[in-house]
């Protein structure tokens, strides 16, 4: 009995010693800065006026929420999140089903191609897409003109088309990850399910909705939550393609926070905006961990 307890104690000690470096690192460089940002959010704190730094209570939040630009960037963030996620899911599913249906060699080839966007820095993807859609030098307008469209469409000067280019770039970068996750899920579905469904006379479409989708529910949930947070945290793609323009029409919550912080040098207001984003993400994370936790317990 005594030995049993000491073993438990020893395990506790070993466990804590082994996780200590990682946990301390995460607290020091992840959690503590977020708390400091939270405290800045209640201050008047401008880099151009550091002597005058003082506590202002909820002033920064009141200013942000009272400004119509907040509701605009919130709307932009939601539009971006919904459209990009829908597009990424559509492409991800297509990619996963194509890879799943392919022979071994073809699957390897497609998987290889699909990994490329994941490995390319976001800022480079941003410039790639800015160049593709450049109204004078980009190939998209040239190809459109061959198909009978306008050869001089100015993609980045109109709100809806600028948003489209940003969404396209993000979808191109992110859907491979979704495709790979869904493929991994597809390969765990037993083939017999499809065979017996086929014997029962179910078509391809019917078995997709009755076998494939229900079996991928868990993975789909994870992917959706991951991508929601990805959409909220997107930065380099917008920085590189539009800089938030035209007229803030592609500016998101996070991009606006960046502008408050590092263009206006207003640490108080920028920190309040960052805290709002953190709270939104925290709410989604809690949901995410709950769902994951439930899945782990089965």
């Amino acid at each position, binding site marked *: 009995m005594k030995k049993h307890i000491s073993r438990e104690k020893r395990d506790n000690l070993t466990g804590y010693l082994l996780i200590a470096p990682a946990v301390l690192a995460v607290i020091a460089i992840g959690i503590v800065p977020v708390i400091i940002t939270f405290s800045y959010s209640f201050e008047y704190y401008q880099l151009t006026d550091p002597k005058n730094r003082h506590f202002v209570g909820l002033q920064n939040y009141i200013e942000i929420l009272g400004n119509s630009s907040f509701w605009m960037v919130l709307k932009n963030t939601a539009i971006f999140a919904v459209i990009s996620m829908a597009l990424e899911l559509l492409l991800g599913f297509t990619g996963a089903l194509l890879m799943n249906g392919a022979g071994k060699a073809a699957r390897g080839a497609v998987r290889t191609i699909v*990994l490329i966007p994941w490995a*390319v*820095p976001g800022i480079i993807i941003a410039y790639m897409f800015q160049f593709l859609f450049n109204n004078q030098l980009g190939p998209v307008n040239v190809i459109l003109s061959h198909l009978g469209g306008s*050869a001089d469409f100015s993609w980045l000067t109109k709100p809806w088309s600028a948003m489209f280019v940003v969404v396209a770039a993000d979808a191109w970068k992110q859907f491979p990850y979704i495709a790979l996750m869904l493929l991994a899920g597809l390969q765990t579905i037993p083939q017999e399910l499809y065979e017996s469904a086929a014997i029962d006379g179910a078509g391809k479409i019917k078995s997709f909705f009755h076998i494939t989708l229900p079996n991928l529910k868990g993975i789909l949930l994870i992917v959706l939550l991951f991508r929601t947070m990805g959409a909220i945290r997107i930065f380099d793609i917008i920085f590189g393609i539009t800089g938030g323009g035209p007229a803030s029409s592609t500016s998101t919550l996070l991009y606006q926070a960046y502008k408050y912080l590092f263009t206006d040098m207003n640490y108080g207001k920028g920190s309040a905006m960052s805290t709002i984003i953190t709270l939104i993400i925290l709410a989604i*994370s809690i949901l995410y961990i709950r769902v994951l936790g439930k899945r782990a317990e089965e």
Partner: protein
Amino acid sequence: MNAPKAKRIAAKAGYILLLTVFIVMMVFPFYWLVLTSLKDPRDISLMPTELWPSRFSLKFFSYAFTEHHLEVYLLNSVIVALGAMVLTILFAFPAAYAFSRIRFRFKKFWRNVILLANMFPIIAVVTPMFIIFRKMHLINTYWGLIIPSVIITLPMAIWTLQAFIDTLPKDLEEAAQIDGCSRFQAVIRIIFPLAAPGIFTTAIIAFITAWNEFMFALILVTKDSMRTVPVAISMFPGQYTVPWGDMAAASVIATVPIVFVVLLLQKWIVSGLTSGAVKG
């Protein structure tokens, strides 16, 4: 007898068509980047642009080095990414092992703390970091970029490694411990070699993540000679002109080695990227 056969052929043709469209869509942006980098500077502003250039040149590649000193930024990126990779593995392996093999109190809580830190937006981390790093003279240093990178790479690394260690058989290390090995010896002699492919994959993913990192590198570096490649490329555009060719060439140089590594190790990377979630 003929109708089902025709239907099968049509289905196959449809599949191949869809696959082709898909591959073209995937490859075209990258193709265009490489093509632009290989254009002759005299052709870069031709209108309409040539979908297949009439002549090629390597001038933009030499401009990337002679005019923009890409070698400086490449060296910075390599140092930062390698540093972040080594630090990440050093911190992640013990933690992943503990989470996988040892029972201790509040294990789930600590795992969630690490996962949660991964969810925080960089924007909420970077301002205090900027202020504190300035006081500590870490702005414009390699450590000043390596340390923050770890917050992005570490949670993912722990997750991937734990999923990998979970798949290793327990009886080997238990047998070794019965034979008189300490737990530490059992880990070093048995788990470490078995986990080598997992560690390697995790290291590559951490390296690429750190190599691609943008926001920390943009904000925590104010001196041009300390910039990493992604940020340096974003500084190429001048006030009135955008040197597309130079940027394309620099981008190709920055991505081709990474893409090459990814292609070489694709099987491992795919399993690394998907292991945590699929098993989850």
